């Protein structure tokens, strides 16, 4: 509860000033400061926005910094605003007993991002699920097929412009 009561740090400068000793922030700053596009601390949770072409290296950097456990990954569709897609990764540290959120923002046209299966093999099913339900491709994924829906399914149901009623 005490974590959640900490004040919001709304942008990267505030996060860098407010929590300079945070292991994930420190590791990403040391790795590639330009690829850490934005940061936010809200509801007791740290969100770090990474440049889309750098996510695999960023994942490897936080993994080396002690965030050893890939917990969850999903996408959010911000249709009709741009950039349209947000891919969120939740990474847990068994040592610090703490979680961070990495995210990348993707454009509407041909959304694709690097796969992090080379860093955490457990991301395999999660990336297939996001591919299936959002239509975001993951470069370098070993087996990028639909996972929930039949292979011949048309469309990606969790997109906001997918019709929720009527005939397909």
């Amino acid at each position: 509860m005490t974590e959640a009561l900490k004040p919001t740090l709304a942008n990267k400068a505030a996060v860098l000033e407010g929590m300079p000793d945070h292991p994930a922030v420190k590791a990403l700053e040391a790795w590639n400061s330009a690829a850490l596009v934005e940061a936010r601390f809200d509801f007791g949770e740290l969100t770090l926005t990474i440049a889309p072409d750098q996510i695999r290296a960023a994942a490897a950097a936080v993994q080396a910094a002690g965030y050893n456990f890939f917990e969850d990954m999903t996408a959010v569709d911000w249709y009709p605003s741009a950039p349209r897609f947000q891919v969120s990764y939740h990474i847990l540290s068994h040592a610090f007993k703490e979680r961070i959120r990495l995210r990348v923002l993707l454009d509407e046209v041909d959304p694709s991002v690097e796969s992090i299966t080379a860093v955490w093999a457990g991301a395999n099913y999660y990336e297939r699920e996001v591919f299936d339900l959002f239509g975001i491709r993951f470069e370098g994924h070993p087996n990028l097929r639909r996972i929930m829906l039949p292979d011949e399914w048309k469309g990606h149901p969790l997109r906001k412009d997918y019709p929720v009623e009527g005939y397909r």
Partner: protein
Amino acid sequence: MTNPAGMPTLEPAQGAKDQHMVINMGPQHPATHGVLRLVLEIDGEIIVRIYPEIGYLHTGIEKTCEAKFYQQVVPLTDRINYLDPLSNNLCYALAVEKLLGLEIPAKGQWLRVVLAELSRLNSHLIWLGTHAMDIGALTVFLYTFREREDILRLFEAVAGQRMMTSYIRIGGVSMEPPLDFFSRVQAFISSLPEKIDEYANLLTGNPIFRNRLKGVGYLSSADAIALGVTGPPLRASGVDIDLRRDMPYSGYQNFEFKVPTSTDGDCWARYEVRLVEMRESVKIIQQALDGMPEGAVKADAPKIVLPDREKMKTQMEALIHHFKIITEGFEVPAGEVYQGIEAGHGQTGYYVVSDGTSKPYRVHMRYPSFATLQSLEVMCKGRMLADLVAVIGSIDIVLGEIDR
């Protein structure tokens, strides 16, 4: 012959094409604990590769959530992991309460702990019964379902429903438990340890059960972490992590309990870890009953928590709030939160994104079985086909939470 669309294409290793056989297991198979389909490539009786095919139970719950008010999502969460319903409710409620900044009174939190632990016991009892049945020990199933019936009666007493409870709501629990509830829980947990001894007597010394589980389905701690395995399988592989102790929620920091671990990493270790976990759950419930605080079970937030029926019928204010919550819902501040809890099967997490309206913009559920299923191939590769059944039982998957 060409494969019909949707069939996974199997490419056996070069040069060994005529020795390997591809067989299908499931989706209608008693040992897959639901509608799991496994396409197996085997060399004689040795498993070469496993291709799990999931999605037979996919209902699009995440999409449905986006069309509901926040409080209307609670009943949907029950249906995901139907063996551990109250943990689902708890995780979702905690996530939305984090967005709202809502504090739950102590009694509400402790009551949630009692119910979450009963729910964990429910989940472990079903696991033990079905796992033993898969191995051939049919009797244990009848024993564990006897105790499970008692738990379902307790759920029915508080929620009026045996399986789809929806008892834990945003802002607390739906209502005060009935007067004799705590004495009934006390009677149940007083008798449970000797019932667990009874299961252990049937299984732990049983040479068939031992030989089927010992050294079978080995999972190293490095593989377990890489593949996202959580819960009892992770602890049985030697990783000492339990969110109840390490990142406490809902007042778990007030309870003392041991987190069992093992370094063996096989099916037997998972069996032993879960058995100890059941005994620890009993201790947590006992502590909660002994120290149950006085006070309200719901937060004092009239615009979010539904008023009691009595007040709704007699007070104008309460009637207005009731009407507003039912017809318009309540607005939740914009933002995104992730809440993880330790459920019976492992780490459950809810990722809720709000855009400031009364309907969630996006709800994503992280369920442990989805990640744990990925480890099946690692555990079974190069082993006998018959071991597969033991391994599926020992990782305790629920297809409702894999497919969602």
